[in-house]
Structure formats: C-alpha cells, structure tokens
C-alpha cells in the first residue's frame, strides 16, 4: 500500500527583485519586480508502507518545501498529494494524528522537564488516555533504553540521550509515517551511529515508514534502501541504493605505495589522480578495463602496499548535483535520461 502519493506536485515562490542603487530602490517601491522561482516543479513519486526513503538534494533544491507540502504546512500550487489517503492541505489536523516529525535543529522537548513529563505532555497533545500513554511510554523506554534517565530533566542529559528522547517523543502516538529532517546534524560519530541503529529498529519493529532528508551520506547509505535526489525543484534520480551503486560504482580507486617512483603506463580506462613520489592514486574505469587487467600493468615487485576502494557515495551524489546544475544551461534534462547515460 502507498502511504505517500505525490503527483505533479508544484510550488512556485515569487522573489522580489531590486535593481541596484537608489534609483532601483525607488523603482522597487512603485513597480515591484518579482521573479518566479519554481521551488518544486511537477514532482511525482510514491512511498510504500514500511519503506525507508532518503530524500536528498543540495540546499535550496526543494526538499523542505516538499516536506512542508506533505505535512500540510504549505499548500501546493498545483498537483495532488495524499499522505495516508489524506489531503494534507485540507485535513491537516486529522493527518497530524498519524504522522510524526523530527527536525534535527529544532528541539521540541521542554528542557526543564523530565523525559517522562515530556512524553506525558505529548500524550496529551495527541489525546492519549492516561493508561494508554503510560503503556506507550513503557514500551518506548524499553526500545530506546531510556530507563536510566527517564526521570532526569532533559537539560542535564547528553546530546545523544536527548535525541533519543526526541525520537521517542515523536513516536508517542504511533505515527505511521515519520518525517526526519537532518536527524543527526551536529552529532558526534558515536551518537550518529547510535541514532541510526535506533531509526532502523523503529522501522523494523514498529513498521514506521521513514521519510528522511539529510546531507550526511552516512545516514543515507546506512539507513535507506531507496534514494530520491531532487535538484532545482525536480527529481533527478529515484532509484534503489544497490542499483545506484551498481551503476555508478564501475569506477574503482586504486591507491599504491611503491618502493621507488615508477612511470605508469598511459592506458585507456586508467586515470592518474595523484602521484607523489612512491604514492600513486589511480582511477580505474572497470567498464573499459577490468581491475585485474589494470593491476597487471603494475610491477608487483615494486609494490609495498595496495588499497582498492569504491568511489565514495558522497562523490557520486556530488557528481549528480553538478551534472544537473550544468545541464540546466543546456536545457531541461529529465531524470531518466541522466540515469541511462551515467555520468
């Protein structure tokens, strides 16, 4: 079953434009010039129940505008959207009972209260009867292991503990869809890992559909099976994570440490990225040359160390952002085209 259905979803903002100088300022008072910016431009996608989806894109690509339209904060100009079968712009309140939101930068907890009091507060917001709220708090505190600090004021908790409470609080009403906006922003690697595993657990044990936006490639890579990339208001890629890697990971990075500096052969499919004495970094395009063929061209006697790795996902995503940016100058390019052509 689809929990989110968006069809040709569009939102256009008008941005005021002003010419330079005093004359421009005066002109703007009498004849304000505005410019249309297509923040979200005919986006269509569906999300199935229980999916974990990464919704990513560079700053200003239209991610948060889309989330705002999915949660009923912003009304679309055009197109249709249904979340859990509900039109968010028409029945925002009804939808609110069934979805949860966590914004990494914004705290929703009262810091002078204990997590327990906070949960009771959110229980009241979602009209949970006392008995049900109690039961739910017990359940969540078990899953998120909150027992040790459930009665300590939030302001005395560590950042990691706080985020765990934030997540638990957003689940008090058993939302079927959870919108996570940059949930791990500003956290140290250990806490990040901890939060990721909790999100995973949440998805698995509670079957919560998770709609995640993040700039952190680690979040995306470790959590999501499906990735949707938006840029300039359009979806430029909607693919499974394995498919994405399979398509874009035909390039390998080979790092070598050699006894003495050597002249490397000029061959199609091998690009020297960096060479500094005995340290060499190569990129091998396995579509042109197999990795074992490439290695055959290197003198094994001379080799001290070797490391073969994939191109980091981060670079792939950056390439996709860039490709879309430059394609704009040439004219609109749809996502499928890009997918077929590769990079």
């Amino acid at each position, binding site marked *: 079953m689809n929990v989110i259905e968006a069809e040709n979803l569009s939102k256009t903002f008008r941005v005021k434009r002003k010419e330079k100088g005093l004359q421009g300022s005066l002109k703007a008072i009498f004849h304000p010039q505005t410019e249309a910016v297509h923040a979200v431009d005919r986006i269509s996608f569906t999300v199935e129940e229980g999916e974990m989806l990464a919704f990513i894109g560079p700053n200003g690509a239209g991610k948060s505008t889309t989330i705002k339209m999915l949660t009923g904060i912003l009304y679309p100009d055009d197109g249709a959207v249904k979340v859990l079968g509900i039109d968010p712009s028409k029945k925002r309140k009804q939808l609110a009972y069934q979805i949860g939101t966590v914004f990494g930068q*914004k705290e929703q907890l009262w810091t002078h*209260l204990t997590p327990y009091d906070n949960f009771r507060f959110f229980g009241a917001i979602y009209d949970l009867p006392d008995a049900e709220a109690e039961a739910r708090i017990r359940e969540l505190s078990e899953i998120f292991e909150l027992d040790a600090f459930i009665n300590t004021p939030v302001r005395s908790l560590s950042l990691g503990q706080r985020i765990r409470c934030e997540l638990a609080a957003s689940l008090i009403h058993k939302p079927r869809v959870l919108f996570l906006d940059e949930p791990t922003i500003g956290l140290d690697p250990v806490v990040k890992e901890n939060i990721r595993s909790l999100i995973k657990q949440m998805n698995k044990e509670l079957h919560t559909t998770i709609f995640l936006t993040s700039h952190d490639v680690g979040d995306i890579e470790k959590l999501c099976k499906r990735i949707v990339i938006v840029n300039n208001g359009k979806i430029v890629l909607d693919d499974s994570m394995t498919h994405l890697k399979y398509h874009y990971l035909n390039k390998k990075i080979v790092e070598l440490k050699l006894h003495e500096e050597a002249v490397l052969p000029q061959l199609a499919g091998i690009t020297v990225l960096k060479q500094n004495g005995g340290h060499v970094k190569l990129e091998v395009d396995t579509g042109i040359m197999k990795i074992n063929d490439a290695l055959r061209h290197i003198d094994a006697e001379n080799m001290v160390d070797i490391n073969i790795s994939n191109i980091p996902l981060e670079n792939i995503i950056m390439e996709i952002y860039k490709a879309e940016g430059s394609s704009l100058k040439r004219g609109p390019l749809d996502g499928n085209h890009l997918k077929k052509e590769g990079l």
Partner: protein
Amino acid sequence: MSTAVKNELRVCMLSVKYNIMREMLNKVTFLTNILFMALNNATFIVQWVILFSLREDIGGYALRDVMLLWGLAASTFGLAHILFARAFSLPDLIINGKLDAYLVLPKNVLLSVLTSQTSVSAIGDLLYGLVILCVFSLSIGRFFLFVLFTVTGAVIYTAFALLMGSLSFWFVRAEMFAGHMTSSMVSFATYPDGIFKGAVKFLLYLVIPVGMAIYQPVHIMMDFNAGRLLAVLGYTLLLSAAAVFVFYRGLRRYSSSNLMEARG
C-alpha cells in the same frame, strides 16, 4: 464540554504551567522580576499624587479612581502577558517561519501559539493590580467586577495584539507598527478618559480598544450599570471573533504563500 475542547484546554493549561515552571528554575530572578515590576508600577503613584495636589479632580476622576484605573490596566496587561505572551511577538513567528512547528501538531494552532510563552514580570503586574484594588477601593461587588474586567480586558488586549500582529501575514514591515500600536494601548489605559474630548474619544473606542477594555469597566465599577456591562461583554466577544477570523485568513496566506521573502 466535548472531549476535544477539554483536551485543547488541558494542553493549554499544561503549556502555561510548564512555561512558568521553567521561569521558576532560578528563584531569585523569578522573584526579583515580579517584585521589581510591582515597584516599577508603584512609582507612578508619585505622578498622580503630584497631579492631584494641583487639582482635586482630573477628568472626573479622584485619586482613588485613577488608582482603580491603573490597577485594572496593570492586571489586564499582566493576565494577557501571563497567558498569551506570544500574541505580542506574533510577527516574529510569522516572518521567520516559526509557525511551522505548530502546524504539524493536531491541536488548535492559535491556542497553541498564544500559550507558548509567558512573561514573568507580568505576574508582578497582575498582583500589583489586585493590591491596588484592595488598598484603594475594595468591596465584594467591586472585587468580582474587577476580576471579570481583568479577564475581558486581557482578552480585548490580546485580540488587539493578535489583529495588529496578523498584519505581518501581509506586510513584512508591520512588525514594528504592531508593537507601537499595542503599547499605545497601555499609554492610554493609564490616563483618565475625562481629559480627552470630542473626536479623540472615538479614537479610543474604535481604533485603539482601550475604551471597552479599561474606561467603561472603571466607570461600571464606580457606578454600576448593567447595560454597559453587557456592552463590554458583547464587545469582547466581537473583537475576539474578528481577531480569530483575521488570524486564520492570514494563516491561510502563510500556507499558500508564494512570497519567499517573508519566509526565510
């Protein structure tokens, strides 16, 4: 009362309670804020003692009447800022897109917004008003009227702030305007209406709602009149309805807004 309404009110009460609890974390600051605000108001007694030493009646008011006026103005201001402090900083929420957080909750947006902040010094104002009443003109009837008018006055004052603040849905520059308009209400509320003549009185009933929030209640407490009491109650309902209507019209604009400049 339906369960939905009960639940709404329960959440609002919790919000106010938790807001005050947060301020009470530092007890010294909490108490000095309250005490000094009361003292602050009390300094104006000097002004009126001086003025009344020059003339025995000012605009038809004696000293104790002006004190009653001052007391009601303080308690009205106090109650509004204890319960609905956010009404007075609404433009900040609108301009900086901070209403989003309230829009994803399944509760009444307006009530959640209004009760999301409290002002501690306002407790000092409310207490000052009650003390002034007790010192200068206490009677059982007047006490109940005073409490009633504190509530209607606070509602009128909040509604006015809400109306002015909602202008920010349409005009970015309206933030400062709203602030000056709401504070002008306090300025008028602390002077007897008898010193104003003719057309100015219309201004105080039609443009700045200080007439129905403060002046009429003081007259009713000085000389009871049931018809006027009903007029105050009716006006309170009417102005609140208008404010709620305008806020939701603005909220619709906020949600369908295509002016990015106003949103950040």
